[in-house]
């Protein structure tokens, strides 16, 4: 099959059910070995996928590529049918509005309260104030923080802060939720609560990608697991388990 026809076939697949497609993607920084080396994978709409691997395995680079913070050195990254290398700088914000993003360190605006942190995401997409006043309390209720809308981030526990981040990521109803080590700073109880929330979000049709080190959660949740090592995908299993480097 020629490169052109292969591309065409993949395009058709993307138009169908694939929401994320990486085709032979490599990323090399100016110094050091490639962070990603010939990665090919596809994720369908509505899937729940864990991406696991040790430090330096390329997980963070993968997330950055999906966010279009970086562009691939070679290969194609497609998200919702769009070739990310072809998105101009000015169009990146509109593209990112399709994604919800949750970080390990929550990344809340510290000088604003819970309500303002979530409303901020709606302001960006120019949602009318009337709708913001309706949507924000609703999403805060979904993540169990309806009563804490006036609190500042520093007045909340780690689990609560991550719920705020989750509410902010979800309030614009993104097609894809990227969670980069969402339980990395949380105790087991809060970690499980966040994972349950992510599962509930996934059940509403949102594609969820979780980068994690949490073996217990990965093994217990019985979801698709993509394992990365030194920039390549070493395993991709439906209902997979956490694979250690030495395994």
């Amino acid at each position, binding site marked *: 099959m020629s490169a052109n026809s292969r591309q065409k076939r993949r395009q058709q697949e993307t138009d169908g059910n694939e929401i994320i497609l990486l085709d032979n993607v490599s990323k090399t920084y100016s110094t050091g070995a490639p962070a990603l080396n010939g990665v090919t994978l596809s994720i369908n709409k509505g899937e729940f996928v864990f991406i696991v691997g040790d430090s330096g395995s390329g997980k963070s680079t993968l997330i950055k590529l999906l*966010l279009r*913070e970086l562009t691939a050195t070679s290969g194609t990254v497609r998200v919702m049918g769009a070739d990310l290398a072809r998105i101009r*700088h*000015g169009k990146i*914000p*509109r*593209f*990112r*509005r399709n*994604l919800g*993003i949750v970080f390990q360190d929550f*990344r*809340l*605006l510290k*000088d604003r309260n819970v309500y303002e942190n979530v409303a*901020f*995401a709606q*302001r*960006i*997409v*120019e949602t*009318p*104030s009337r709708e913001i006043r309706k949507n924000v309390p609703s999403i805060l209720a979904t993540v169990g923080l309806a009563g804490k809308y006036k609190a500042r981030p520093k007045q909340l526990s780690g689990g609560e802060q991550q719920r705020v981040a989750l509410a*902010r990521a979800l309030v*614009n109803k993104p097609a894809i939720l990227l969670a980069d080590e969402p339980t990395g700073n949380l105790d087991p109880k809060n970690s499980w609560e966040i994972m349950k929330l992510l599962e509930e979000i996934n059940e509403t049709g949102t594609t969820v990608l979780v980068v994690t080190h949490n073996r217990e959660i990965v093994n217990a949740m019985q979801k698709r697991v993509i394992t990365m090592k030194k920039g390549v995908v070493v395993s991709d299993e439906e209902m997979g388990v956490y694979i250690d480097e030495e395994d």
Partner: protein
Amino acid sequence: MYISMKRISTLFYTLAQGFRSIFRNKWFSLASVATIGACLFLFGIFYAVISNFQNIVKNAEKGVSVTVFFDAGLGEDQMKQIGDLISQRPEVSETRFVSADEAWEGFRGDYFEGYNDGFTENPLANCANYEVYLSDVSLQGALVTYIESIEGVRRVRHSELTATMLTGVNLLIGYVSLGIIAILLAVSIFLISNTVTIGISVRKEEINIMKYIGATDFFVRAPFVVEGMLIGLIGAVIPLGAIYFLYQYVLEYIAGRFATLSGLLNFLSIREIFGTLGPVALGIGVGIGFLGSFTTVRKHLRV
């Protein structure tokens, strides 16, 4: 209609965020206002002093005149014709004809008051003259050469030294003020942009978060720019207010304390000073606030 409503809503949100940011980051705001204020205060004081100095020299220049004497026997009509020729010159601001009688009256009044009965004729019969005042003292040489070449002119009395000195002082003030203004501006821009850079670098994370969520460059930048311009505006208004009161106080103090000098020293009014200083200081404050925030935020937008 819906789109423009959204734009208006975003505009108000941006303005409100700019205002709020000033209070949220009060230490940064205070540092920036203090830096801009201190620089513009120095600038304003310097401007007021230099403007007054220039004004005093200008007034001194106005008093510099050349006196034109005519050949003996020349009629008053002919003198006035020559006077008309002189007053058409661009170097001339004003001319005044002094007849022989007026010249003697003035001289007698100054030197022979009470002892003037012995004079039966006008000893200054041939001393009718024109006092010619200059628009620019540095052009005195050219004017004197011209007047001396006119037929009927006997002598042109002038002080080369005064003209040269005043021209020199004028040039010196010009160069010194240009130099000091350039240094002050350079230092101000450096200090202010440094303060703004530090203030915004601290908020780099905030900018990153906004960009990750999908904020456009405009949406991220606009509140910072509004904040920068407001800080610049406040940083200009405070020193302007201080200079306003200080200037009036100093004028009153000098007028009260050195009343005898009031004839010599003509200070500019506060309105004259602020006619230029006000818009310039506000422009510098707001301009630096705008440029500082605009360029610094741009560095962090590539996320």
